[in-house]
């Protein structure tokens, strides 16, 4: 598909020879305005001139193809006349007359239909039923993964997805996974896909690896795929089913390991269920209210592309409310900090709150994966690709999804991780691959294995572009941001820490602990390492997504972890014990709710400090 771009037929000069092939495909005229805007902003940095240039380049390319084809068929035709003459003794005129008798097809549709009907008669690959693609929806039926996010309009009404109880969601997903299961069950690489539908349609399912993702088949692992055998490998992973919220806190007085009579168990179960129901009810009320208001508003306003939390329009809705504490944004933040997003709908919330649903362009991910393959040796990208390959087998080696310890073969998510990281490198060659991304994407991949690879990719992109702090317009992982992140640590250690936790600060200072040495690691890994309980890290992301200012949240979380260990830290009299304690396993016994509430409180204080400081400067 990719002809040498230098050999452009009409001398169309291509400005940057190393530029990747950005061909737009042949359905641009059918794109919605939004899609065009998105594509222009993502691929061309918002420059419509580049977009037009690309369109014209595509046309040139097609014309070139047509000329070559025409030439090819002209020769073939000549050959054909010769063959007719020598084998059937037919003259030119006779052949022409015979050909004219064959009915003329004068529209592309007729020709296509003709071709399709011919194709239909041919034997098909056993798993994929193919129907004439007269309407796209008929194809979608065979691509259930896409169904959930098929059209733009459907995604705009995203709240509907929340309100349908998690069971509905599950039904949708189960359908999608089961139909994949019924397909080929050979967990091979992605190469052996028998029929390749258009990019837009294959975009989400990577055949091959999606069939393996069935946690029930894996023994001795927790829901996230970490080996729990003997508890020695990962004692800190909590084997709970994730839907547990913080019911434990209220339940703990009841649970007594000795007196575990049936009645007690029932009581525990009942309380747990009650709490769960109460939480669900609160979420439902909230979502219903917001959706109602939004529906009213949507009718009168045109769609303006907005990202993440802003897309919720909570702030706009809040203007109609007089009591600040009751504001929708505050309510959402409070719901999330108390309970986290209900695990059953977490991925949907993430997708919306992060802005991933806004920046996702169908088919774009697959294009990027293909580009990554084609440009595997591109000098500007090769360093990143090499580093990814080095790190792939070092990503969560104790997790069965990434590394099968019995066979020593890569696990099913290994390949997804590679494709996502590779695609990211192509999309953002200015950032490239930074160690730590592997861990973040890895965590996102195991968060909800029903979420497609493509969606995980966009979630990751939006985390970096929209959610994590940016520094002078450069994203968190840009090379130039490193020094700003480092400065943020110094400021955190010397200003906010000192003001908000003076006693602990004085103690650590006296021990000669350099706080920024500890927090730097947390920040570079976006807390994946320190919050090594999956459920806790997901809580962190939940809260990050609704934070007013993500840098303040990260600061507050850093301080919150210190706060949580305050007593312990005050008892230490040696700085290396501090480093060891705050290294890696710190959050082992942390209560999620407690940490998140401390963090929220600190975040408020930090926000206020920043505001005051801003005022003083004025």
């Amino acid at each position, binding site marked *: 598909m990719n002809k040498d771009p230098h050999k452009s037929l009409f001398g169309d000069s291509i400005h940057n020879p190393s530029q990747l092939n950005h061909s737009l495909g042949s359905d641009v005229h059918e794109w919605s305005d939004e899609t065009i805007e998105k594509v222009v902003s993502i691929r061309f940095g918002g420059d419509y001139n580049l977009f037009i240039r690309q369109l014209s380049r595509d046309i040139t390319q097609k014309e070139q193809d047509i000329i070559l084809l025409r030439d090819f068929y002209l020769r073939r035709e000549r050959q054909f006349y010769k063959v007719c003459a020598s084998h059937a003794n037919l003259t030119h005129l006779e052949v022409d007359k015979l050909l004219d008798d064959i009915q003329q097809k004068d529209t592309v549709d007729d020709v296509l239909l003709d071709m399709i009907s011919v194709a239909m008669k041919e034997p098909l690959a056993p798993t994929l039923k193919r129907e004439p693609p007269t309407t796209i929806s008929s194809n979608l039926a065979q691509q259930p993964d896409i169904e959930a996010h098929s059209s733009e309009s459907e995604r705009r009404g995203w709240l509907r997805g929340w309100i349908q109880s998690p069971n509905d969601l599950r039904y949708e997903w189960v359908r999608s996974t089961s139909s994949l299961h019924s397909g080929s069950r050979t967990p091979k690489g992605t190469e052996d896909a028998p029929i390749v539908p258009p990019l837009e349609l294959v975009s989400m399912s990577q055949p091959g690896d999606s069939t393996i993702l069935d946690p029930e088949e894996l023994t001795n692992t927790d829901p996230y795929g970490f080996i729990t055998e003997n508890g020695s490998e990962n004692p800190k992973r909590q084997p709970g089913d994730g839907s547990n919220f913080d019911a434990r806190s209220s339940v703990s007085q009841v649970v007594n390991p000795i007196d575990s009579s049936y009645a007690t168990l029932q009581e525990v179960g009942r309380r747990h269920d009650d709490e769960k129901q109460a939480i669900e009810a609160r979420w439902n009320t909230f979502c219903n209210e917001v959706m109602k208001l939004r529906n009213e508003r949507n009718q009168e306003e045109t769609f303006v592309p907005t990202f993440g939390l802003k897309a919720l329009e909570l702030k706009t809705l809040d203007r109609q409310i007089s009591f600040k504490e009751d504001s929708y944004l505050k309510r959402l933040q409070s719901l999330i900090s108390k309970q986290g997003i209900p695990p059953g709908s977490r991925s949907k919330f993430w997708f919306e709150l992060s802005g991933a649903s806004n920046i996702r362009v169908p088919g774009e991910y697959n294009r990027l994966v293909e580009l990554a393959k084609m440009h595997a040796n591109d000098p500007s990208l090769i*360093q990143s690709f090499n*580093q990814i390959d*080095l*790190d792939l*087998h*070092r*990503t*969560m*080696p104790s997790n069965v999804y990434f*590394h099968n310890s019995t066979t020593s073969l890569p696990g099913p998510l290994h390949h997804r991780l590679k494709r996502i990281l590779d695609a990211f490198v192509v999309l953002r060659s200015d950032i*490239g691959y*930074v*160690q*730590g991304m*592997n*861990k973040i994407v890895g965590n996102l991949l195991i968060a909800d294995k029903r979420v497609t690879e493509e969606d995980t990719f966009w979630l990751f992109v939006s985390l970096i572009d929209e959610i994590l702090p940016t520094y002078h317009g450069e994203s968190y992982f840009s*090379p130039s941001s*490193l*020094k700003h992140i*480092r400065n943020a640590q110094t400021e955190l250690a010397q200003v906010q820490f000192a003001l908000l936790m003076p006693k602990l600060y004085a103690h650590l200072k*006296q*021990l*000669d602990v350099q706080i*920024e*040495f500890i927090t*730097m*690691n947390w920040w*570079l*890994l976006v807390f994946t*390492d320190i919050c090594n309980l999956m459920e806790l890290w997901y809580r962190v992301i939940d809260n990050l997504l609704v934070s007013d200012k993500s840098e303040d949240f990260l600061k507050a979380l850093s301080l919150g972890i210190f706060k949580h260990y305050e007593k312990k830290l005050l008892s230490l*009299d*040696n700085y*290396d014990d501090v*480093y*060891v304690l705050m*290294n890696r396993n710190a959050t082992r016994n942390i209560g999620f709710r407690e940490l998140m509430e401390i963090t929220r409180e600190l975040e408020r204080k930090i926000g206020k400090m920043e505001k005051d400081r801003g005022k003083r400067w004025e």
Partner: protein
Amino acid sequence: MELKSYDKYRMSFAPPTTSVKLVLLGEAAVGKSSLVLRFVSNDFQENKEPTIGAAFLTQKCTIGERTIKYEIWDTAGQERFASLAPMYYRNAQAALVVYDITKPASFIKARHWVKELHEQASKDITIALVGNKHDLVEDDNDGDDSSLRKVSIEEGQKLADEEGLLFFETSAKTAYNVNEVFVGIGSKIPEAPLLKPQQPQATDGRIDLSTGTAPAADGCAC
């Protein structure tokens, strides 16, 4: 906590403990963390997660009459994080510059690190140049073209001689020469290193400074 009180008890009789801040530098995936893991826990993991930022570990090591407590900062190898290194090697008394003897690029990077340390780190820093992954070339015969080895012992030794470094070839996997590196460094550390005055234990322990310089244990065992 229990250990600490034991330490105090021990210190009044045993030789003084010197704290040494040691930093590891080198290209990604040359085996820095594995060397530390081998030294600290005598363990090896085939797939070790990459280090981001820097990891902190401590390990004691007895050399002759004295005990050295290494406070190890194991830094991230990816080029992207190189600008963070000064944070960690500031005030370090020792550094291990690690390369992979099967990867020539990592040796070039090691050269850069040595240069940077000489320019930026403390003047009296003790540096050891370490060529890791010796296990990969163990069975090689000399002059074998198919050898995985891409950096010869002579090249390593030459750089070490020019720059005044200790030199070792090691294998974190087989434990070959790993302890020797830390013993070698310890022997080169001056008796009264620049210690942070805030460290009460260290000053308590350092009473007798009369012990002679330990015999230099340089050169590799090969």
